[in-house]
């Protein structure tokens, strides 16, 4: 007890020994009425409090480390459609409680609402980042935290909008509890390894809800990616973990719940893929463990191309998908073991919960559609039902490519997806 007290006093003394920490208050009509002035005056450790009001100033640049920018009553930093709004170029800076808006569209520069450039350990928390070309842009800024921001835009097309939260060479970032909508890509990791992305909601973006490239060893969990024009695409990375996310409503020929291209090693666990044209798409992905996911009401639950090797599907649920699995070749380089398929019609004589007859998830019709896409028009036709029945009687018709030798008789868990709700036309 006394020891703890001593420590506390010691820390207090150390604090007093430092430069006096100032609080600079910025407000319309106050002593300091421009944020620019406050940022110039701020010393390391200072707190700049910006009170309610709209601030239309040249691009704000903070070059002093260890400064905290606090918005009181949602002050608006407005770029008036002409310029980037806030740029942080120092370490240990916190930005909290601002409304940042109006970068306008530019084809020459990547204007961002909030940009951290060479600013390690920055914290960007609880801001409203509305109608900017790029929302929050971390550029060569390690160990940053981006939390609880609301990032929104209403760009008309991909070329006139930027990404919601963009990371470029910014390792070990924590991106959590943000809401992103209407940007080009919701969250984009580029050359940014070892990041943690969780509990974000990224929806209705014009391209991908989440996009990452060359970003190894990242963890993505408990995010929701919904109704993004092209779903989610992750490419050219190794050692990624994607767990307990929701991938929903990615509709269209080029839209994927989760597209994995050239991913080497990793885990896709406990996710829900619901109502996507393609739930999960593996192209050149290698050594992935795909476990305990629920695939519900997708057009294609899983498309596994032949160049995807040594991937292992286990404990997944396949429910009410138009096609469970398709592949583009007759050779198989990925394995299925112990999944539950709603199309399984086998029996279990020894009652160990595992079906005694192997299940072939690639139906003949699926293969025909893969080769002749136009025949998709015959989906759920009685003719196709006859084809399926024929496959049961004559198993040699079924493509041998992929097989689940131990299909489960009963689902492992209650499906959490709301399969009970059918939806009409896409939004």
């Amino acid at each position, binding site marked *: 007890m006394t020891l703890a007290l001593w420590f506390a006093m010691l820390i207090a003394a150390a604090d007093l020994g430092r430069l006096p920490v100032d609080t600079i208050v910025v407000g319309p009509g106050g002593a300091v009425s421009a944020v620019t002035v406050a940022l110039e005056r701020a010393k390391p450790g200072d707190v700049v409090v910006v009170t309610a009001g709209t601030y239309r100033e040249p691009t704000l640049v903070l070059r002093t480390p260890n400064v905290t920018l606090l918005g009181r009553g949602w002050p608006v930093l407005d770029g008036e459609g002409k310029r980037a709004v806030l740029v942080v170029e120092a370490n240990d800076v916190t930005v909290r409680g601002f409304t940042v808006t109006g970068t306008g569209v530019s084809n020459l520069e990547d204007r961002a609402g909030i940009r951290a450039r060479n600013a390690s350990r920055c914290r960007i928390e609880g801001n409203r980042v509305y109608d900017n070309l790029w929302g929050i842009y971390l550029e060569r800024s390690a160990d940053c935290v981006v939390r609880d921001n609301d990032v929104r835009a209403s760009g008309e097309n991909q070329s006139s909008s930027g990404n919601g939260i963009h990371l470029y060479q910014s390792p070990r970032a924590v991106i959590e509890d943000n809401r992103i909508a209407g940007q080009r890509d919701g969250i984009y990791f580029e050359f940014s390894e070892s990041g943690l992305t969780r509990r974000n909601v990224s929806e209705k973006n014009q391209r991908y809800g989440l996009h990452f490239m060359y970003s190894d060893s990242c963890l993505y969990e408990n995010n929701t990616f919904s109704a993004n024009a092209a779903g989610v695409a992750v490419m050219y990375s190794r050692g990624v973990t994607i767990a307990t996310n929701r991938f929903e*409503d990615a*509709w*269209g*020929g*080029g839209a994927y719940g989760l597209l994995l291209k050239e991913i080497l090693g990793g885990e896709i666990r406990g996710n829900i893929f619901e*109502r*996507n*044209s*393609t739930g999960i798409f593996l192209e050149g992905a290698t050594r992935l463990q795909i476990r305990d996911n629920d695939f519900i*009401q*997708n*057009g*294609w639950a899983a498309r596994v191309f032949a160049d995807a090797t040594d991937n292992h599907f286990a404990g997944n649920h396949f*429910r*009410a*998908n*138009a*096609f469970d699995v398709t592949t583009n070749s007759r050779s198989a380089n990925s394995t299925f073991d112990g999944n539950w398929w*709603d199309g399984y019609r086998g029996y279990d004589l020894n009652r160990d919960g595992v079906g005694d007859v192997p299940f072939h998830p690639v139906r003949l019709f699926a293969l*025909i559609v893969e*080769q*002749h*896409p*136009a*025949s*998709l*028009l*015959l*989906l*759920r*036709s*009685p*003719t*196709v*039902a*006859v084809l399926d029945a024929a496959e049961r009687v004559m198993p040699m018709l079924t493509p041998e490519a992929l097989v689940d030798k131990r299909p489960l008789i009963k689902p492992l868990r209650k499906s959490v997806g709301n*399969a*009970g*709700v*059918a*939806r*009409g*036309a*896409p939004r």
Partner: protein
Amino acid sequence: MNVIRLIVSAGLRDLSRSRWLIGYALGFFVLAEGLFWFGGSGPQVVLSLLNIVLMVVPLVALVFGAIHVYASREFVELLLSQPVPRKPLFTGLWLGLALPLAGAFAIGAGLPFVFNGGGGAGFSALATLAAAGVVLSFIFSGIATWIAWTTDDRLRGVGLALGVWLAATVLYDGAILAATAAFGDYPLERPLLAAMILNPVDLARLVVLSQLDASALMGYTGALFNKALGTAGGAAMAGAALLAWCGVPYLMSARRFARRDF
């Protein structure tokens, strides 16, 4: 008008006592109820029912319809010896057949959804399926009527009905599948969509699928397909085409009936 009403009500009274029709309704009831029992949720039940509806409704409408028309032939000849205009008489006969068929289907397949509170679970899909089944009943009972008034030999007539059924449900799509595979290198969107319109079974299937499996249909990268199937306008067009189909066999067999020499 009066004649139509009289004949329809006679047909209704006659058919509502038919064990066949009661069995038909009961069959759908047990089936849909059973699907619910075995743990299906709304959309899955609708999907399972879809295939059965597409197969069974045309089959029953064709075979039962043809047999019914053959059986009522003497009754019709008796009526025709009275001063009764032929057109309204025919309309009454057709409706007297189609309405009980459609009603039996709707009641049998619909009640389980009411019992199981299917209101929320894919209700639009279910309503579409029910509507599709009803329309198919009308179309194929019309075709059955046409067959029965064209072919005098009962055996040949029923055989023809079965042939039409097989062609419409299985062979037609099989031919399309073969054609798609054979001409895969050519742009097939337009001919395929046209082919879908020419077969009411395909039309009904696509109309229901646009409510259920649209995510899969949208997976095809054809702009025309997406427009025709993925949009509300496209689904409405397909529905309109299906309704128009009701008129085709009716007009054909009404003409046949009016000119027929009894």
